[in-house]
């Protein structure tokens, strides 16, 4: 085995979390949903990655075509995080694009930049209609890029 040579992906997500996020997206169809990704950032071989191990559903102002965090929801989540998951931090956010594919709109990029300043913060977009999901990071300027990731499950 050459485990040491395996590239470090920017994101690892527990299968359970992807299930929760997809469930949230399906429940609210045809409206968009939004939420926070919880976990921790780590470094390995000089690379920073995040391991997503939880999620919190956000209170959003949602329609079929746009979604935004309710103004006080970030503070609320930070508070519940301190209370219920002191070992976790917010490592990014998720939202759904019911039927129109996975990408970041200009509004999404603006939201990301205003709430998630760290370079390792990620955005997960789920399309429960086309049955697709993808991770993104916002880059310099007004761009974004898809990032490599892996879905993992803790062995029992």
């Amino acid at each position, binding site marked *: 085995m050459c485990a040491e040579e395996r590239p470090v992906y920017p994101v690892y997500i527990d299968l359970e979390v992807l299930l929760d996020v997809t469930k949230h997206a399906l429940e609210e169809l045809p409206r968009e949903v939004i939420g926070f990704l919880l976990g921790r950032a780590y470094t390995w071989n000089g690379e920073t990655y995040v391991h997503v191990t939880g999620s919190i559903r956000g209170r959003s102002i949602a329609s079929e075509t746009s979604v935004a965090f309710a103004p006080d929801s970030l503070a609320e989540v930070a508070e519940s995080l301190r209370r219920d998951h002191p070992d976790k931090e917010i490592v990014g956010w998720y939202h759904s694009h019911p039927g129109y594919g996975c990408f970041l709109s200009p509004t999404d990029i603006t939201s990301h930049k205003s709430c998630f300043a760290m370079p390792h913060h990620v955005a997960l977009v789920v399309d429960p209609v086309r049955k697709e999901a993808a991770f993104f990071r916002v880059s310099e300027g007004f761009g974004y890029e898809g990032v490599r990731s*892996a879905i993992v499950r803790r062995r029992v």
Partner: protein
Amino acid sequence: MVRVLDVTEPQPEQRPPPDITDEYEVISRDEEGDGYDISEIVDMLKGMESGEGDAQP
């Protein structure tokens, strides 16, 4: 001397990624960063919702 610790942005701790530890198994990889086909997940959840799906692991 007073040292101010910023607890909101701790320095990431060194830890091997889940895919090189024995603790985790990899379900799927997105090698190109172009996303996943989550048909299986969606279909399984829809099956559970309708109560007709067989419970898959």
